[in-house]
């Protein structure tokens, strides 16, 4: 089962490593990653798709705790397809 997060994060050293470390450590695999730097706001937009057998809410809550993450939204795989369509 894959899940997609839309994240707005502060542009800080090691921010992306921190996000990826949590994904791996909490038992999920990275499927795709898109990063767009919004230089003016000092933020970074991240679209992160992961897969795993554990409940996705457990990862969502861990990512939400990261200090550098300003906003986090979970979109299910099915919803993500619908949005693109």
């Amino acid at each position, binding site marked *: 089962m894959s899940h997609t997060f839309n994240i707005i994060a502060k542009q800080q050293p090691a921010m992306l*490593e921190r996000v990826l*470390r949590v994904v791996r*450590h909490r038992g999920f695999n990275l499927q795709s990653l898109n990063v767009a730097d919004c230089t003016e706001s000092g933020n970074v937009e991240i679209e992160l798709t992961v897969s795993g057998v554990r409940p996705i*809410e457990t990862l969502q*809550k861990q990512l939400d705790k*990261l200090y550098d993450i300003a906003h986090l939204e979970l979109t299910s795989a099915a919803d993500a397809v619908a949005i693109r369509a």
Partner: protein
Amino acid sequence: MTGAQLVLKVLQQHGIKHVFGYPGGAIMPIYDALYDSEVEHFLCRHEQGAAFSAVGYARSTNSVGVCMATSGPGATNLVTGLGDALLDSIPVVAITGQVFSSLMGTDAFQEMDVLGMSLAVTKHSFVVEDISELASTLHQAFELAQSGRPGPVLVDIPKDIQVGAVDFEPYPIPEKQIPVFEPDLVEQAKALIAAAKKPIFYVGGGVGMADSIEQLNALLDYTQIPAAATLKGLGTIDPSYPHYIGFMGMHGSKATNMAVQECDLLICTGARFDDRVTGKLDTFAPNAKVIHLDIDKAEFGKLRQPDVAIRGDFRELLPALAVKTDIAQWQAKCSALKTEHAWRYDAPGEGIYAPALLNQLSSKLPHDHVVSCDVGQHQMWVAQHMQFTSPRNHLTSGGAGTMGFGLPAAIGAQIARPDTMSVVVSGDGSFMMNVQELGTIKRFRLPIKIVLIDNQRLGMVKQWQELFFEERYSETNLSDNPDFLTLAKAFDIPSKTIHSKFDVEAGIDALINTDGPFLLHVAIDEKENVWPLVAPGKANHEMIEG
């Protein structure tokens, strides 16, 4: 002023009077500033010792501890202490010197990627890239370490930032933000409590850390619900509370585990369903509904799905849960279990029975004391057989289980609370892990009391080898230990060895009544194991009793 001087100014703004550390090349400007500072630095003999002293300082006062180290190996030596603080949610700020910014990423002397290394062992970490951000970064570090679920925060400061010029600006410490809980959830929780026939409180370290011990005990008094404590929760529940059942989990009392297994409502309060508490998770309190109370919502549903989960400040949340119960039968059942499975100290033979010694020690210590233990069999005996009046008085490496914790953590506690007797209970394995910190005791003439329980084995590993590895005692024989009395003497610490149970009282008296530090070396039989025990993969009601 210089960046280094600013670092110390910010520490003072946050009320930091004492720091623990070890100097080196990349942090020399900060040590130069310390030379004239009112912040008192305690030189430890290894950076791991400095980190654990900061942890002991923080735990014994429920405030933030500060440690510092140089770049490269100085910082790597802090890592174990920070990981320990992360798993036990201890507020620590670590400051590391880094090589000049221009040399970062060039494999310069003592240059390592400390920020990268810190990711897995801190709540958050920073590298300061511009001197204009130095003060704000340090302020954020202090706020983060103490806010929400506390934890360690590291700030890596390159040398050019330390020697650069900067203006000091006052910084108003912001008010703590208190999470607001939903009244609907409180009503749902109260309905569950009122309806329960066999409720039980499962009390963890979060209660003490939220400074809500008084509120918890008031709630217990009002509800009269039986209550059990985790390793980190010991000392939270008033020992005179009639429905306190005791220590729960792998080496908890049988009474506690049997009661928890039978309950129909588990009120998990500042705890996290750690595997050492639950045993086989899907058999833990199998018939219970769960109310989970915590400051960290990531704990809700991580291991056990709650029926009601409430995130909130316990000082406000716990009083809101007061509801009368009618559970006389259940209270009587828990009391009967406690009586049936009470600890016994009537061990046969003339040798020293460590649980009896620790129980006796506990009754002889002054009312206000700190016990800091290491990791292994002795740690579980401390948890089982010593009594604590506050979780601040029981320093133990719970989540990480780090051998070498005890001695430096006791040093931190002794410096934080100089008028309180600080006692280390260690084993012969753990003691040697940070034995260099005897040098810190000598340097600052700290009156720390050390009880070294010596079975010439890595006892807990040996116990598992005996039970689960067909008595194949791989690398757990320590019969070539050094002469601990000679070792103590080298650090000006008087000492005494006892072998017989008839010497225990005199040994404890010497430990307590000798001015200054003392080491009581307690020789015990290597065959003595920790009981009861829940074997790995088993349910808590399947405890082995030895």
